[in-house]
């Protein structure tokens, strides 16, 4: 007989009884403490059911256990006293709750503890170095007084603690005490526990801890440091907490995971997890490998789940996730590129870019008539339709959905002042966006249309004025202080001075390991007569400044030679 159990129960009494019977039948004495809040109608059948079972006893005194208050510690101390007195041969006492479940045969636990007779297994973390708590107080747990139960009187609790802080009412620690925190569930050796129970200063210490907040996470954890010979600062009970500090439940589908953890106990178990109770309440040695507890796999699973819950998936907007504007850094799921003015400067730019980088290159996604998906698709990945009405109804969601549905493949699309503009506000604030703008490139399109005779005279002038105004607006937007996108902007003339040198860093950024280095530059639009065209517009009274200065008369000299130049890798 090496280990006995103190079991604290308040709900799911039938499951607690089942576990207690199993423990007792395996030769481990159990003292059960039932919360005084458990109604008589539930407690009496429970107690009668277990009456006379060899090895099971009830605590001599029932405490009222309020979460975060002294009752739980008082109950534990009394029950431990009862257990140690009744069973003088015990070497260890294990504290568990009614929703704990042994995962390994108890003889293995007995052997494990027998081999470590003087070791205390209790998570005990000093408050000086690390943050153990998940939100809430840590140091203040010891410095303030907490006379009001948090769960029942939340406002009063806040008022009382707030007032103490404002007034600077703190109290000194008892001498020789170094506050430690840790999990409530432990397994202590007899000498340590007896030293705590029969400490000559116990009255003083108990009085202090009565007004500490959540003393069940600090009383034994602190005092064990005074008396223990060997502390193993870990709990033998596997329990997982979410980011609010509330314990996760284990269900039937966790069976394999719990089996492989090799931990001795787990909590909390969902009371209706029949399969778990049926599988683990046996001392069949075949189920385990006699290994050291190894909760790594469970830890990873639950920390992944917590991360997902805390951070969500960037760029996903869904039923249960509507990102808060200021708090979500990334608005989209992956990086993407916006090219404004490039398709006008280089006819056939989409095809060239697709060939050079191997990425998915769309046309003008926000074109007024239809969405120009790559390859002219009518329905793109993620069932996105090419209807402009659907897109313009909520352009932000359109873009976020496109990037979400094509995760793993960088998207590039063309943009210009003739397109629907609403989305640019969203793009500007998105760190995933890479925006490259050749301002004034729309003039090349107008030039071509004038030469084709589609647009002349005052209609041409009006269109030019409109496009320039729209472009000025998004240029101004992209220069705002809050912009998170990576923005590059040139005037058309400035860009054309060294087009490949300007393109190279963009390409390096979006496709650093592009399969094919660009061996040839994209074909430049014809600039013959473009300078004269701009001058005609200016002569008609337009204040045209975005495209920049082009020599009238003939094509500009350095880049104007429209011959493709070999791209030199520096």
């Amino acid at each position, binding site marked *: 007989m090496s280990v006995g159990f103190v079991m604290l129960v308040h709900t799911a009494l039938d499951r607690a009884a089942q576990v207690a019977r199993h423990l007792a039948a395996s030769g481990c004495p159990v003292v059960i403490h039932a919360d005084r809040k458990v109604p008589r109608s539930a407690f009496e059948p429970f107690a009668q059911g277990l009456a006379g079972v060899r090895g099971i006893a009830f605590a001599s005194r029932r405490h009222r256990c309020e979460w975060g208050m002294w009752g739980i510690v008082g109950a534990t101390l009394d029950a431990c006293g009862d257990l140690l007195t009744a069973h003088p041969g015990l070497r260890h006492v294990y504290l568990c709750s009614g929703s704990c479940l042994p995962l390994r045969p108890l003889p293995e636990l007995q052997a494990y503890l027998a081999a470590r007779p003087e070791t205390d297994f209790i998570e005990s973390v000093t408050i000086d170095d690390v943050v153990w708590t998940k939100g809430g107080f840590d140091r203040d747990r010891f410095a303030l007084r907490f006379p009001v139960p948090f769960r029942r009187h939340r406002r009063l609790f806040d008022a009382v603690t707030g007032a103490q802080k404002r007034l600077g009412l703190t109290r000194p620690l008892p001498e020789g005490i170094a506050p430690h925190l840790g999990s409530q569930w432990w397994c202590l050796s007899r000498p340590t526990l007896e030293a705590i129970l029969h400490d000559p200063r116990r009255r003083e210490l108990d009085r202090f801890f009565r007004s500490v907040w959540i003393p069940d996470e600090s009383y034994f954890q602190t005092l064990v440091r005074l008396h223990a010979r060997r502390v193993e600062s870990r709990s033998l009970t596997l329990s997982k907490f979410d980011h609010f500090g509330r314990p996760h439940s284990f269900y039937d589908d966790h069976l394999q995971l719990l089996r492989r953890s090799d931990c001795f106990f787990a909590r909390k178990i969902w009371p209706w997890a029949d399969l778990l109770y049926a599988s683990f309440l046996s001392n069949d040695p075949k189920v385990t490998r006699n290994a050291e507890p190894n909760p790594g796999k469970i830890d990873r699973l639950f920390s992944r789940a917590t991360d*997902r819950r805390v951070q969500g998936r960037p760029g996903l907007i869904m*039923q249960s996730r509507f990102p808060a504007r200021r708090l979500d850094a990334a608005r989209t799921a992956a990086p993407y590129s916006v090219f404004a003015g490039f398709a006008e400067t280089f006819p056939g730019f989409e095809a060239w870019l697709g060939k050079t980088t191997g990425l998915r290159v769309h046309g003008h996604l926000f074109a007024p008539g239809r969405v120009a998906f790559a390859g002219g698709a009518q329905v793109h990945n*993620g069932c996105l339709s090419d209807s402009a009405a659907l897109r313009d109804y909520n352009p932000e969601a359109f873009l976020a959905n496109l990037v979400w549905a094509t995760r793993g493949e960088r998207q590039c699309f063309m943009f210009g002042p003739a397109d629907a503009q609403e989305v640019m506000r969203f793009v500007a604030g998105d760190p995933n966006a890479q925006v490259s703008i050749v301002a004034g490139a729309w003039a090349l399109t107008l030039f071509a249309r004038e030469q084709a005779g589609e647009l002349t005279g005052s209609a041409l002038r009006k269109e030019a004025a409109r496009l320039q105004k729209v472009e000025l607006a998004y240029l101004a937007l992209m220069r705002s202080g809050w912009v998170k996108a990576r923005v590059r902007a040139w005037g058309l003339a400035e860009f054309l001075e060294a087009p490949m040198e300007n393109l190279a860093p963009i390409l390096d950024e979006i496709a650093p390991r592009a399969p094919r280095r660009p061996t040839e530059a994209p074909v430049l639009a014809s600039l013959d007569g473009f300078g004269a065209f701009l001058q005609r517009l200016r002569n008609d009274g337009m204040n045209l400044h975005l495209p920049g200065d082009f020599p009238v008369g003939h094509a500009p000299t350095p880049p104007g030679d429209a011959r493709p130049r070999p791209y030199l890798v520096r």
Partner: protein
Amino acid sequence: MDGPDAPAGRRETMTAPEDIPGPLTRAAQAYRMRWKRRRLLFRAWRKRGELACVTPLRPVSKAAVLCLATVRNEAARLPFWLAHHRRIGVDRFLVVDNASDDGTRDLLAAQPDVALWETRASYRAARFGVDWLGWLARRHAAGHWVLTLDADELFVYPHWEERPITALAAELDRRRQPALGALMVELYPEGRLSGTPYRPGDDPVQALPWFDAGPYRARRQRPARNLWVQGGPRERVFFGDDPRRAPTLNKLPLVRWRGTHAYLNSCHALLPPRLNLAWEGPGDPRLSGALLHTKFLNTIVQRSADPDHRAEHFGDPARFGAYHDALAADPVLWHDRATRYEGWRQLERLGLMSSGGWT
């Protein structure tokens, strides 16, 4: 059955800061919503006379999860619908039968766990059954977790195959989340809608294995602060020209019901408004489920041609004539980007529902 058309309200998008009202406006809106909720509760109380009890509700334990539904001529769907929701652990069904003539009433009256009421009054005038169910919920379901469904919706949630709905309810209680949101995932067959036969009792997901994995657009609306999600196949096929009228796809089907709660707009929005805040903080994806919408079984084609059916659905039936015509013409909803339904893990992977850290 269909809900009314798109809810009206101011929109709240991710980038437009001007849409957040000031504190005074917010207070005024809150007050308006309070009165609106009272009006709805009063309305439900007034409509109580339209319901005649066929089978009374047998006593249930406090922890039981109840399911509420209004049905009309659903004899084909109900056997599987009942079986599915029994399997996930629903204890009792509280059903209003609205003038069925295909044996629905007898089928339901024969079930041991169904409490049945019947009415011949107008579904539309009862706000698409919401008034009737509101009264039943207030009368019989206060304090319970209540699942409000239509007969063409199958409720699924993370781990539903392994964990009963009572476990889900306990988890929501633990998180102090008073309601669970769900996206309607609209299922459709591969060919024409009328082309796939369906026998009562079969799993409709076998007949309708396809769905659209996107795009879904969400925005938040004032003053009820409800989410408004649109998208999916119906929008793609029928509402491409007028997206505002595309069906609303978010619902709050599972609610810890209190006598003071009222559904505002089918199950899409709840009052008081705080229940609509289905997220709790920065980027925090809550638990959510999904409703497998089996509307497009072969019966839909005939039904859409039926003038009675047309008149009883949508806030403004006249505007939806073209939609019903299109459905009656037996269209193909399938396309080569459609996704085959595999189960809840697939829905979670695609970002259509979230286990919100419940592993």
